[in-house]
């Protein structure tokens, strides 16, 4: 251990990969039909196949849909932009960040790219890193 070691970090969710090249998302892909899932499946929801492999999800895509949430449960910071991004055929849920949360700046079909940012540091000094999508 040295003082120069970079602070520890942990991905906000386990399908966000931070330690293997540029940050990216991974999915479980059905080897039978190619359906992708961000969590585990006993069998594919599309073809019932039981073999899955791990695949990297494209980090650029287009915004298929969005909403600007102004009213949420207590503790959730508003406003924020929630959306669905088509990452080269794989749909991903995430927030749109890096631009003002208003309909003049958020456009259906706009190109976006994956970005990561810390959401806080725990008592052990570990930073949790979340992902979102920013205008490309």
């Amino acid at each position, binding site marked *: 251990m040295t003082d120069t070691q970079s602070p520890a970090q942990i*991905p*906000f*969710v386990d399908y966000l990969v931070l330690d293997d090249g540029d940050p990216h998302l991974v999915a479980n892909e059905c080897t039978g039909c190619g359906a992708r899932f961000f*969590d585990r499946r006993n069998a594919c929801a*599309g073809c019932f196949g039981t073999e899955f492999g791990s695949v990297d999800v494209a980090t650029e895509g287009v915004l298929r*849909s969005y909403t600007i949430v102004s009213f949420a449960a207590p*503790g959730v910071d508003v406003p*924020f932009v929630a959306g669905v991004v088509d990452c080269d055929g794989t749909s991903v849920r995430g927030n749109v960040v890096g631009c003002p949360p208003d309909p003049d700046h958020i456009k259906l079909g706009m190109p976006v790219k994956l970005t990561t940012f810390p959401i806080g540091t725990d008592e052990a000094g570990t930073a949790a890193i979340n992902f979102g999508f920013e205008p490309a």
Partner: protein
Amino acid sequence: MSASDDIWILGISMTKFGKHTDKDTVDLGAEAIQDALADAGVTMRDIGVFAAGSLMTQGGIAQMLQKQVGQTGIPAYNVSNACATGATAQRTAIMAIKAGEADYGLACGVEKLAGAGLLAGANRSADNPTWTPKGRFGAVAAVDGRIGTETMPGVFAQIGMEYLHEHPYDGTPFELFAKISEKNHSHSTLNPRAAYTKAMSLEQIMGDVMIAYPNTRPMCSANCDGAAAAVVVNGATLKTLSLEQQRRAVKVSASILTSDPYEEACQVLPNVNTLTRNAAQQAYEQAGVGPGDLDLVELHDCFATAELVHYDNLMLCEPGGAVDFFNSGATWRTGSTPVNVSGGLQSKGHPIAATGIANIWEVCQHLRGEGGPRQIEGAKLGLAHVIGLGSACGVHVLEKAAA
């Protein structure tokens, strides 16, 4: 289909929707059941099967209701299918009759929801002192608001906006969806059983509190108390009843329940489109009718953004043509396909488990010519649709008695 396979609604009821401070869930459900039995001209002694649902109630609502209105030892089914719970209860009773296990069936949906506030999206608890991956996604803290939204207004806002991405729209989405809400709030002025009966101008709707763009508060379904119940009977038994009972009976020409088939993206943003389209397709085939034959439609406008997509899903318009269809005025009560003349979930209200049967009640009122000031003149055929997110879709096609 032989006469004995025909299914008819013999009696049906809906309580006033709104705030019932003096009644609990059982009181409300029992009121709807007593009214439906009286409307049918039968008693609990006649009923051979009972299905009931109440999403917010712990324990068996069906047995609680039996204790309030009559315990006869018949099979009682407690059903839960999100916002499609009422339609599922209805369909459960219908299936038992179709199977020949009973001649008369009873279905009830009831909910106490006044003042419930935002549905889904739990309060965010404080983050753990140490980040620890939990749950199916290995999330180290609460996900809602950090990876999209789990609130219903936000989910359905995206469902409406997605339609405008797939079928590009030049105008302002906010104004388009607000106009749909304006229609339903206008319709409810003629419905004394609606939770809200005041017309709202476009300016009022757009100027109200923003919940999840493009849905403001009046563009969201109104949380309220309410119940609905229906008595169904097979065709052979109906023939033994009075001419008046036969005249007022409404034929269930189709009763369909679907769930969402797998498609890309359906586990990321719920897909309420394909299962509705599938249900509609099956319903039209079963009833031997087409969407152009419908005199009125009650569809699941849980948010203004949802109503638009269901014009297309129920095939009321050309594929991709929902915006033009709405802008033509077709879905106003004076239009070619009146939609939600009750005021819809946005204005009539949405006591969740009651809604599926309440939508059927509304259509029956018109088919019986008992719609009062909001009667759609000469209505002979109608469709009632609900969606439960997760997802479940109920579609019933209803037909006026020939006599």
